[in-house]
């Protein structure tokens, strides 16, 4: 392997002016130079894993994390452990030529270790749905699956447009999204879910709260008199706390029985399924728009 | 001859007293211990006897006056220097960890070479000799917890002897001890005084033991010296009644002819 690399380097030296090495800019503005298009990618981000499978580039995926559970085939890829504490040894053994990580979910120490081990790291940092689209395109460019990426983005845009049309012009009900019941965690500024709610035709009562997914007191949430309450479920029987909300009979949402449960994993990942999230939210917020 | 230790107008007060208690003081105390002398320090509770010991070992610093050790001001001597000349045998043996008797006695050698990491062969010899003198050689491998009260006191005495001091200061050496131990202790101290020429400052509640062993007595009360002299001179009924506040009868010991103090028990 060293011999062929040396040969390649020699060839590149002999060809003046050729763009040797791939120059890539990741989502945080860092510039990476890769000697060749990555063929062995380790993804430390479940949403990135999803995207890679969606655009058809899964053969370039050499490793994933334990949390990369969608699509089902992703579980068949070798895992390097958790997002917070992936095993460096397992990672190195996979001989990756690129590691994809995120600033929100992976630790800075992991990033430092990877840099120390001289592994190229591609950082993603999506905040909005637009960012997700751009990420799909970027990953398509990176893996040489531009067409697959285009198909995915096209499909996603089409579906979003459809939702947009259906909820256009309708009054936006005050919507409370409960990410976690106790302590109460809600989507605030810059949270993906806030944008999803907006695109689904709702008005999130917590959109002015702190960045990301901050905590909020129950009182403050109740004081905003939400008309629609959506409780996120995280699978596997985690408590949703429905009865706690049903007891608050004075709330408009409870009175009109607009207390719903939604699948959280679809809403919180910056992957292709965010559009599914938009669709399911729209159906809950504006059921009248989807009656055939 | 330069006295082993001399207090010159020494005064001491604790910087902060407990609320409701008066500041304890030693007032204008002056006395000396000559080389090879046994001085007994007696007096009622809170007379200041233990404070004197702390002042001598530099645990406390006098507020007034000066203390001299072999002619040199105590102020100017380092702790190790003091420990080489004055050895204190405390009443209580505080201990947090299970050191053996041998290790404890060896600790007495610290002052002679504080910079050493391990003790020398000479240190070991001195320690062994000290243990032989006090009869605890056979217990060298034991921990204190397995010894009787008398044996423990002898271990502490051995440690003090290992310091090779010129003056031995004993704080209530026979407190809580049975008769046999008391007799052994007096015999041992007397031997050390006569054979080794060791000066002894003896603080005790036991007036009779102090009278037996001491060349001179110093009677203290309320932080000041009341009187000093031979046991016969000091142990007078009137003096004792005044200081202790109870009736006593002073007799002569049938064998040694030293004065013995007997309490006149009340309400008979």
């Amino acid at each position: 392997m060293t011999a062929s690399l040396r040969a390649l380097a020699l060839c590149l030296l002999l060809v003046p002016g050729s763009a040797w090495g791939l120059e890539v800019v990741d989502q945080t503005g860092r510039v990476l130079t890769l000697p060749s298009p990555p063929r062995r990618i380790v993804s430390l981000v479940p949403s990135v894993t999803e995207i890679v499978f969606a655009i058809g580039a899964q053969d370039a995926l050499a490793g994933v994390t334990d949390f990369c559970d969608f699509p089902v085939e992703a579980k068949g890829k070798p895992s390097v452990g958790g997002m917070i504490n992936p095993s460096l040894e397992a990672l190195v053994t996979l001989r990756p030529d690129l590691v994809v990580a995120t600033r929100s979910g992976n630790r800075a120490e992991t990033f430092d270790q990877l840099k120390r081990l001289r592994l190229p790291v591609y950082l993603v940092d999506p905040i909005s749905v637009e960012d997700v689209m751009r990420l799909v395109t970027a990953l398509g460019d990176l893996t040489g699956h531009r067409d697959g990426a285009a198909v995915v983005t096209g499909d996603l845009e089409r579906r979003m447009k459809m939702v947009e049309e259906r909820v256009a012009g309708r009054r936006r009900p005050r919507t409370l999204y409960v990410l976690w019941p106790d302590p109460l965690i809600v989507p605030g500024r810059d949270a993906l879910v806030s944008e999803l709610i907006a695109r689904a035709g709702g008005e999130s009562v917590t959109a002015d709260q702190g960045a990301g997914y901050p905590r909020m007191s129950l009182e403050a949430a109740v004081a905003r008199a939400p008309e629609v309450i959506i409780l996120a479920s995280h699978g596997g029987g985690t408590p949703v706390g429905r009865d706690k909300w049903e007891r608050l009979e004075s709330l408009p949402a409870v009175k009109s029985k607009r207390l719903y449960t939604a699948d959280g994993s679809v809403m919180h990942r910056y992957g292709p399924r965010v559009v599914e999230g938009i669709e399911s939210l729209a159906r809950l917020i504006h059921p009248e728009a989807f009656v055939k | 001859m330069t006295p082993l230790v001399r207090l010159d107008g020494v005064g001491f007060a604790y910087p902060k007293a407990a609320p409701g208690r008066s500041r304890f003081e030693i007032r204008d105390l002056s006395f000396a211990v000559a080389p090879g002398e046994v001085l007994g320090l007696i007096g009622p509770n809170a007379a200041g006897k233990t404070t004197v010991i702390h002042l001598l070992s530099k645990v406390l610093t006098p507020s007034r006056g000066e203390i001299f050790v072999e002619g040199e001001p105590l102020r100017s001597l380092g702790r190790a220097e003091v420990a080489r000349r004055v050895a204190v045998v405390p009443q209580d043996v505080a201990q947090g960890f299970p050191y053996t008797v041998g290790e404890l006695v060896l600790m007495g050698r610290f002052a002679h070479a504080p910079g050493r990491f391990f003790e020398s062969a000479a240190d070991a010899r001195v320690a062994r000799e000290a243990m032989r003198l006090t009869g605890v050689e056979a217990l060298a491998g034991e921990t204190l917890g397995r010894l009787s009260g008398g044996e423990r006191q002898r271990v502490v005495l051995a440690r003090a002897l290992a310091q090779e001091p010129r003056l031995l200061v004993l704080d209530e050496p026979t407190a809580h001890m049975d008769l046999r131990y008391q007799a052994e202790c007096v015999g041992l101290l007397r031997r050390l005084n006569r054979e080794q020429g060791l000066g002894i400052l003896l603080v005790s509640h036991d007036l009779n033991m102090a009278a037996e062993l001491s060349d001179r007595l110093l009677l203290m009360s309320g932080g000041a010296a009341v009187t000093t002299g031979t046991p016969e001179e000091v142990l007078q009924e009137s003096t004792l009644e005044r200081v202790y506040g109870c009736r006593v009868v002073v007799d002569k010991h049938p064998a040694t002819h030293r004065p013995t103090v007997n309490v006149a028990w009340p309400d008979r």
Partner: protein
Amino acid sequence: MTGRRKLLAVCAGLALVLGLVALLSLLVGSARVAPGAIVDLVMGRGPVEGTERVVILGIRLPRIAAAALAGGALAVAGAGFQALTRNPLAEPSVLGVSAGAAFGVVLAQISGLGQGVVEALGLTAFAFAGALVAGVSVYVIAATGRGLPVHTLLLAGVIVGIFFSAAITVLISLVDTNRLGGVIHWLLGNLAPIPAGALGVFAAVTALGLWLVLGKARALNLLALGEEGAQELGVDAERLKRRIFAGSALLTGAVVAFVGPIGFVGLIVPHALRMLVGPDNRVLIPAAALGGGVFLLAADTLARTVVAPAELSVGVITSFCGAPFFIYLLRSRAGRVMP
């Protein structure tokens, strides 16, 4: 002198055990590395294939070094503090220093530090700052005009520790959920390979702390007689206490800064070793330096192999495995524990 001979024997024995455990640790892990490759690498014989070289030199070896250093530092700090407070159940974290250092690191992490190598050192600086603030606070609270009374020192340490733990809890409740996992992970105490430069600084600081504590080991023995008792034997007890306190705090702060808060080692290792080699600090402290390394290294090796490729926090192992072992030692050699 039996003292010297005992020290040599104990150190030689423990060094051997440490070497064996280190070798074993080098051989196991999530990645499959042939023992032959390790031998080749150590001998300087090449070529060793890229991955194996990276795993051995880049991941395992630095981590082993970090574990040995951190374990030794914590154990020596524990031994020093136990001698200082005359309490065999004292722990370096009782000083409040590890809580202060942890607060510093959490604060740094939350304000976004730690994104690059330079910032990694900044993280360390925050930890030291936290350790210093906590240590000085404890000292200032406990010190009176007449010195450093031990019971006040313990109390002040506990209170300062509680304060900083509460402060950490406040920070945790404010941090956004994305970063929460990382912060909690760090708080549980995890070992990771440290870059060579940082490892060098860590080793140097540990050596300084060890010198501070070990240099006065003989006088430290005398402290068992009580401060007055030690002073009567010629020890300057106040200076000694300050020095041991500084050494212990330095060692604890260094571990938290470079590795993270790991509990229990400073309590169990010196105590267990005291049962085996006796209370003489001149033997106990060097033994703790080596024995602590053995203990933490073994615990960390377990932590990273038991559920591979996932890893347990080493703090979990030290507690779960340390406690029963400690109980066994306590019951079988009860005589030598308390006087």
